[in-house]
């Protein structure tokens, strides 16, 4: 009973938050709604017993991602209302609703083959974090490491793109100009 | 040397073409002529070494190319392909020799040498894929020749030529792959070798589809009605040399392929489709002849006349008997010589007047009597005057088809009437009457360089018209083998009766003939 109430409550909340996110014309509202939605999602994780995931959700999304977005927003100065030219709204809503209806149509029916054998079952008597740890560092060690590489890539990418390296086009500058810049950089390093 | 003479014949010009890049521009013509001459001598040597009593393939070369997919580099000639190869090398030679001043002469000659490789390759290949390789590759140099040296609509014409034929041959390729697959199913081995395929007897329903697939590729190349419209453009826009080679050799690929592929592989389907194809051929003959009559541009007249003649060739091919097929092969050579010569002749006047419109001429016989004479000879050959080369082929083709259908042959025979109509009308417009246009009054007659090309063609035209035996005999022997093969492979009752069985009676006539001598 509690579970049902919680599910419907949070379902309602997330749906409305996300709905606001995609429809509001105030970027700030959108950001806030998104952050709220993320937090509500973490609630689901807790309901479902995925405590670790819930924590990660809050930390990564609301903590990190939202913060970056907030910075981005400030940078782009899009705190005021966003004006967007809209095309045909019917296409958009039609496509979205249709996709939802179609999938729901299928998902509404229970699966026939429900007796799944869990390949990586939860371990009796262990906390969720421990379980996750066990699987993550055995089976999913490699994906984990690759994810690390991915984050490294993202970091480098972020630095390259957002940093000064892209400010001037080395393609279009001639050698003299580049030397000039280099000299200035050296000066800065020396001083 | 003889072991690889075909490979040499194929790749010598290409190699020479590659080296040609290093030759200085001014010397290029001499280089080109010498290469083509050597090639021609080699091809003559091939003829010399050819044993005309053997009906099968000679000078066979075989090398596995993609063994796991059954593709091999197999070459060989028989009486059917031998003369077309010689014709190809001959026309390349006189084409280069008679080349008038062209911009980028070097590129032209190199292109021609590559074209020669593909032409010889098509006729020497005995593996479907190798055949296809050369078949497609031949489009490229021609594309360039038409597109770069052609008339005002050259790009349109060349692209149309390329895409149209390319489209058809791709369908043919699908057919080839099917054929190979059937062979694989039957034997468990992949093979694209033609001689292997000859052994395969397919059910009629398969034959029909495969025939249709091959037909599209060949028919566009021939070109058969209603796939012919690329040809007038290609000819109309191409430079003289391009038209000459296109008409003399490239068109023959289609009809040659009919004999090499369609007939022996699908005898039942050939019989099945005989009447439809004959009707198309008759439409080609009469309809294009009438269209030719309506033309104002003399080159278009010759171009449409080519289609008309190709109709006779197709008809002869689908006579499915020795007379008809031999005739059609002979007519291929004949038409090659004659239409090549006619295009050269049109080129002569085009060089002088830079127009091909017939109303710009008139009375040329007064100012250019030698030209008029040679043109007249070729004209008469074109309309199928006996004792010229064309007559032998036309006569045999029609004779052969007469066995299959009387009424259709009668209709096809209208060729000799309608052919005369447009040709004579064109000749009259160009050569007869008084010289009315000022520029025409002082036109120089054919010069030495042009004669170098035209005289040999005239000689061949008459020589093979009077004495076709040296050519006809090897053709005959090979054709007999093809017809016998078809008869043996035929499965339907109709095909068995339509395609003659040569094992009966042939001995008798042969011996009778020997006694007659």
């Amino acid at each position: 009973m509690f579970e049902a109430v919680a599910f419907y409550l949070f379902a309602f909340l997330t749906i409305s938050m996300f709905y606001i996110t995609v429809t509001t014309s105030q970027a700030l509202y959108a950001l806030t709604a998104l952050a709220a939605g993320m937090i509500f999602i973490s609630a689901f994780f807790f309901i479902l017993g995925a405590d670790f995931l819930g924590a990660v959700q809050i930390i990564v999304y609301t903590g990190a991602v939202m913060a970056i977005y907030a910075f981005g927003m400030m940078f782009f100065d899009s705190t005021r209302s966003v004006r967007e030219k809209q095309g045909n709204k019917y296409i958009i809503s039609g496509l979205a609703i249709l996709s939802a209806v179609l999938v729901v149509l299928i998902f509404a029916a229970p699966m026939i083959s429900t007796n799944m054998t869990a390949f990586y079952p939860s371990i009796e008597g262990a906390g969720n974090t421990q379980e996750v740890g066990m699987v993550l560092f055995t089976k999913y060690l490699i994906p984990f490491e690759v994810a690390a590489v991915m984050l490294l890539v993202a970091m480098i990418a972020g630095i390259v793109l957002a940093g000064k390296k892209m400010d001037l086009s080395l393609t279009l500058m001639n050698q003299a100009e580049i030397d000039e810049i280099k000299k200035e950089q050296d000066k800065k390093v020396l001083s | 040397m003889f072991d690889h003479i075909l490979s040499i014949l194929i790749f010598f010009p290409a190699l020479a073409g590659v080296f040609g890049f290093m030759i200085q521009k001014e010397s290029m013509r001499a280089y080109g002529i010498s290469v083509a001459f050597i090639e021609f001598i080699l091809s003559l040597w091939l003829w010399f070494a050819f044993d005309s009593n053997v009906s099968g393939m000679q000078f066979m070369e075989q090398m596995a190319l993609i063994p796991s997919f059954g593709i091999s580099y197999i070459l060989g000639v028989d009486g059917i392909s031998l003369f077309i190869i010689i014709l190809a090398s001959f026309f390349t030679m006189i084409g280069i020799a008679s080349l008038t001043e062209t911009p980028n002469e070097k590129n032209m000659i190199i292109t021609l040498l590559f074209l020669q490789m593909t032409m010889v390759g098509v006729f020497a290949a005995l593996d479907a894929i190798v055949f296809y390789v050369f078949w497609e590759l031949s489009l490229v140099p021609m594309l360039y020749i038409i597109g770069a040296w052609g008339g005002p609509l050259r790009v349109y014409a060349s692209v149309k030529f390329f895409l149209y034929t390319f489209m058809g041959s791709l369908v043919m390729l699908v057919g080839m792959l099917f054929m190979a697959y059937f062979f694989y199913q039957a034997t468990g081995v992949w093979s694209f070798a033609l001689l292997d395929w000859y052994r395969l007897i397919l059910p009629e329903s398969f034959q029909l589809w495969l025939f249709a697939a091959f037909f599209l590729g060949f028919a566009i190349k021939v070109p058969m009605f209603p796939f012919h419209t690329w040809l007038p453009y290609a000819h109309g826009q191409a430079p003289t040399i391009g038209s000459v080679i296109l008409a003399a050799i490239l068109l023959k690929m289609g009809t040659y392929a009919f004999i090499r592929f369609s007939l022996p592989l699908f005898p039942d389907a050939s019989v099945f489709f005989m009447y439809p194809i004959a009707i198309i051929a008759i439409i080609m003959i009469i309809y294009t002849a009438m269209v030719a009559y309506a033309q104002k541009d003399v080159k278009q007249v010759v171009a449409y006349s080519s289609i008309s003649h190709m109709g006779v060739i197709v008809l002869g091919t689908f006579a499915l008997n020795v007379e008809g097929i031999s005739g059609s092969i002979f007519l291929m050579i004949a038409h090659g010589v004659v239409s090549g010569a006619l295009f050269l002749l049109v080129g002569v006047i085009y060089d002088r007047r830079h127009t091909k419109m017939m109303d710009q001429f008139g009375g040329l016989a007064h100012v250019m009597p030698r030209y008029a004479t040679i043109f007249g000879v070729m004209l008469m050959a074109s309309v199928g005057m006996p004792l010229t080369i064309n007559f032998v082929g036309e006569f045999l083709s029609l004779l052969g088809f007469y066995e299959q259908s009387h009424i259709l042959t009668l209709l096809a025979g209208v060729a000799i009437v309608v052919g005369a109509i447009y040709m004579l009308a064109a000749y009259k417009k160009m050569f007869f009457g008084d010289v009315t246009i000022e520029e025409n009054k002082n036109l120089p007659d054919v010069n030495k360089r042009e004669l170098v090309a035209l005289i040999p063609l005239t000689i061949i035209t008459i020589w093979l018209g009077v004495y076709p035996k040296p050519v006809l005999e090897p053709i005959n022997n090979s054709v007999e083998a093809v017809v016998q093969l078809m008869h043996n492979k035929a499965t339907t009752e109709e095909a068995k009766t339509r395609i003659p069985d040569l094992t009966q009676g042939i001995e008798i006539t042969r011996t009778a003939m020997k006694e007659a001598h």
Partner: protein
Amino acid sequence: MEKYLYIALFAPLVSSLFSALFTATPKKQFVGIVASLLIFAAFVSSSILLTHIIGGGEVVHVELMTWMATGDLYIPFGFVVDQVSVTMMMVVTLVSTIVHVYSIGYMDHDKGFNRFFAWLSAFVFSMMVLVMSDNFAGLFIGWEGVGLCSWGLIGFWFHKEIATWAANEAFIMNRIADLGMLIGLFLVYWNTGTLQYEGAFAAMPSLDPATLTWIGIFLFIGAMGKSAQFPLHTWLADAMEGPTPVSALIHAATMVTAGVYLVVRSNELYDLIPHVGLFIASLGAFVAMFAASMALVNRDMKRIIAYSTLSQLGYMFVAAGLGAYWVALFHLMAHAFFKALLFLGAGNVMHAMHDELDPFKMGGLKKTMKWTFIMMTLASVALAGIYPLAGFFSKDLILEVAFVEHHYIIYSVLLITAGLTAFYSFRLIALIFHGEERYKLFGIHPHEAYKFMLVAMSPLLLLAIIAGSFKISYFEMVTNVLPELEYHIHHPVTFWIMVIGTQLFVIAAIAFAYKKYANSSVKVPDGTSKMENSIAYKILKNQYYIPYAYEEYLVKPYREISDVFWKQVDLKIVDATVDGIAGIIYSTGEKTRDMQSGNLSTMLKWMVAGTVGLLSLAVVFGLAVRYFDEILAVLSGLGV
């Protein structure tokens, strides 16, 4: 004897090639002389062969080499000199020798002198091939060869539009007939297995009549073209645009008789199919009358003679069609002599009159052109069939044949035609040589032709007079190979009534012609006289409107249909379809490229749309599977 055969055959070829060498150079007298000598050599050889054959010698048969051999087909260059061919050889070589010599004078002032001899000799060669060949294919070579030479010679003065037009007309019409001939050849080959006369004719009796009928019809179609039988006759009159010696040689003596020769040569075939023979005879009779009628009113000297030729060809076909092959051949020979003479005479007149052809503009020429006058008059007498000249023997014989075979209609037609022939022949003579000297109005000063031309013509004159006397010996010779049919009217009274009646009728016609045209009241017609405005006159003048009909209903439509085929069908349908397909592909690309609007939002929408599309397919399919049983139940409930 083979030696002579080769000389007879190849001397003209050598002559032609020799003359051809000089075509590009100005006139050279010796070209004509050499050519004439070579043709004369052929004539001499033919004569030797003739004596050989008459002397009961063996038929000379040679096989030069293989021409075509493939499959079961075997065609050699084979030549045969037998009684039939040697007759033709004689006629051909004799007339051509004379014409060659005559031409030296006639073409004296022509630029194309050398070229003329090249063509003329080539013609002789082709004709020799035609008559000497021992197989149908060889015949066909000659057949086409003479067609070609005829084309070259009719259009000899190629600057004249009308001449080249006539040349093309002749060639194309002959080609139409040649198609029939070709089909006949195919039929012969596929039914008898050979094209050699010997083998083919030997095999024919065992064939079924329908096939034979077809063979006969198709071969005769070929003959119709060459011999200008209705409806392929129009070219002959137009062919008169060529130089007159050409008309004499080709369009009177030799080529046009090739059709008759073919029928005679195929006598073994036509004997088997008498109904076709009857048709040939009927057509011949019709053409005889038909052509004669057109000759009555024509005002072109050469055309009148041409129509007369046509008419006489009709006679020959009557004879051949009725199975009297030797009679046909005999008339052919006799006709060759006097008709060539007539033409050459007309050539003299033309020369004298500066190429004027209208006899109404001449008159009274007998004073200045005595010899020509004599020759032409005698030739006309021979043509009219007056005893004892050549025409009487041959032509009367044909009438007899028709009578004896009980074809009275044909007989009466021929009889009337004989009268018409006499009338128009002497109308011509009267207009040219008698009456007022009307040419003076046009300021022409006529002169007699060169002496040697007249001398050259004299053998023809002689033959035109005496040819009839060869009848018996000729009959004996020819019947060695041809059916031996003698025609005797059983009742002598009937015979004499017929002969004398015919003679009287003809003489009456001549007298009438003289009366009407040999007086001084003849004026150059100006289109106002009553006769000229009568319908009959107009019909005849316009050749029954047949050339007009051909022009209007065949040539023009052909040209128009050709144009339609090119501009409407080829460009607008066939080619447009091809281009259209390409165009559709291209324009589809052009139209749908807006899908790539460059706007990211649109791109995303496309992606979502694609996914939704996939989903809907998936759901439809998935639900269909899930509720498969229910759907089946519903459907069966609906009675599907």
